[in-house]
């Protein structure tokens, strides 16, 4: 009945909201939205255009908007810089991001399953600990984290960016929420058919988690790919650095040549934008439901 009324209301001509939606005000709304869109895109456009400008043009005051003699030289300069083995830094960033995605998907789903479907002594306390861990900000743990890595000799290795993030409390909460909705009958049916608990997890629970794992995976990937402070603290050897850190280092070497630094920025920023366009739905959804950034 409710749906009926609703359909009736929204198809009938006199829907009072239509006046706001499609009337003269509608044009104003669209105009405002497009202005906002332009302001959102402008820094990207400005960066991309600058990356195609030649050295003499970039130094002009006032600056030009469209490149007069568009060139790919800036990108060539970066790719051919012997002091800048870019492939290396892409690999470093990708390795750290993929490793963290794998560990956090595994531990989040396993612990999420444990907290959703099992009863055991100390469960509440254990769960509370993870909740506390989620509340404690990185400001507090950064210094001892660094000292621990120094003690065990993991500074200046990519492992330094992996060892502390094996358990992701956000992911654990998210997947626990999700797994709680799976019917117990499904799990019991597998048990009656002779599946062990691990098999239940691997063959029954995991295959149901597709969308949730995709969301968590893309969020983890992006936050690792974009991370700056922690990689800068624990890795000081140039060839072990990740992309964002190398970008600021490169910037400090070429600060008076914005065409080159903007081309470098494009090369760091664009891969994540491509990922974003493919997984847009999941990413936006994931950000809103997890409160993660």
């Amino acid at each position: 009945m409710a749906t009926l009324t609703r359909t009736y209301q929204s198809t009938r001509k006199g829907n009072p909201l239509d006046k706001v939606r499609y009337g003269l005000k509608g044009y104003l709304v669209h105009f405002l939205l497009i202005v906002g869109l332009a302001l959102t895109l402008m820094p990207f456009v400005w960066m991309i255009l600058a990356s195609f400008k030649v050295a003499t043009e970039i130094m002009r005051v006032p600056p030009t908007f469209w490149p007069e003699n568009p060139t790919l030289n800036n990108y060539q300069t970066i790719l051919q810089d012997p002091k800048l083995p870019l492939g290396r830094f892409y690999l470093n960033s990708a390795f750290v991001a993929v490793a963290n995605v794998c560990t956090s998907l595994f531990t989040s789903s396993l612990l999420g399953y444990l907290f959703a479907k099992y009863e055991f002594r100390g469960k509440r306390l254990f769960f509370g600990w993870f909740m506390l861990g989620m509340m404690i900000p990185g400001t507090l743990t950064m210094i001892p984290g660094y000292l621990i890595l120094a003690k065990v000799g993991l500074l200046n290795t990519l492992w330094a960016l992996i060892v502390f993030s094996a358990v992701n409390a956000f992911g654990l909460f998210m997947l626990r929420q999700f797994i709680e909705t799976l019917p117990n009958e499904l799990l019991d049916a597998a048990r009656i058919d002779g599946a062990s608990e691990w098999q239940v997890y691997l063959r029954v629970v995991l295959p149901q988690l597709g969308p949730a794992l995709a969301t968590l995976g893309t969020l983890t990937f992006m936050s690792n790919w974009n991370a700056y402070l922690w990689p800068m603290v624990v890795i000081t050897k140039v060839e072990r650095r990740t992309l964002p850190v190398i970008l600021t280092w490169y910037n400090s070497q070429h600060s008076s040549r914005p065409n080159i630094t903007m081309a470098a920025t494009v090369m760091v920023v664009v891969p994540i934008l491509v990922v974003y366009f493919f997984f847009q739905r999941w990413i936006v959804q994931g950000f809103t439901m997890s409160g993660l950034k």
Partner: protein
Amino acid sequence: MSASTLRAVKRRQSGLAAEKRRFVLGVTIPTLIYEALGVLTIGWALALMFFEYSSGRAGGPILGLGGSNPFVGLEHFRNMIVGTSLEARLFRTSLKNTLIFAFGVLPLNLAITLPLAALIESVRSRLKIAFRAIYFLPVVTAGVGVAMMWGYIFDPQYGLANAVVRLLGATPIAWLSDPRATFLGLSIGMWAVIVTRLWSDYGYNLVIFIAALQGIPDQLQEAAIIDGANAWQCFWKVTVPLLQPTLLFVCVMTMLDAFQVFDIIQVMTQGGPNYQTRVLMLDIYENAFRYQRMGWAAAVGFVLAILVMGITVVQMRLLRTEWEY
């Protein structure tokens, strides 16, 4: 059911319970061992702030505390309040700037995102998805990338900002390096990082507001409009009150992130000009890893952590109110 089958079922059940117990232990024990690392980290963090600590000195037998890294008790905290040394003054400047930054970003962010979300929500659905996707782009962009882009926009000679200023016939401004220029009582450098932050961040709150607006049934607004309310009244008297829980969530998240701002400031201004954009995270980073004053940095980190956790707890309290419509 015969006695023998009953026994078999019982045996099977106890086998299942044992199997489950083994699974629980198999998962919890490695996790507990791993979490010991977390306990060590937090314990060490809490201990550090009572010491004069540098990783360059050997110090005492337990975690390097004591010995040449002497115990100073609450000295760091006393210093923060009444100290006259450079680091104490810088701490107070950083705390002040962090608060200015957070309380500057929050209202401006809401003033942009809430009306914008209402506008997006009022257009047709296919466009809505496109708008939302593009407005979200800055959120997924690396903070360092954002800082690089805006650093170039604010470049005094070649930047876009000053190109616009010249077009309007005004004198160009050294956005990121003029310590004397102010606007509405805030230094121009602070404005530059606030604007950068707003741009990089507003897509997030926008998406949350859109989701919340979608959760409000059309009938409520329709009823208000039938009763003679205009769109403006409808927005303020119907929509906004219903958004209260979302508003609270958004305020808290925005504050939390603003308190911990680092990337854009470290890249764009390094805390300058004249410490006008130095924030707590930068203060902690420089003390700990540039000047090796790790005890002091841990104490500053503790203050920031208390601020951040305080906000989280207040949020949890306030969010307990249940809303229904």
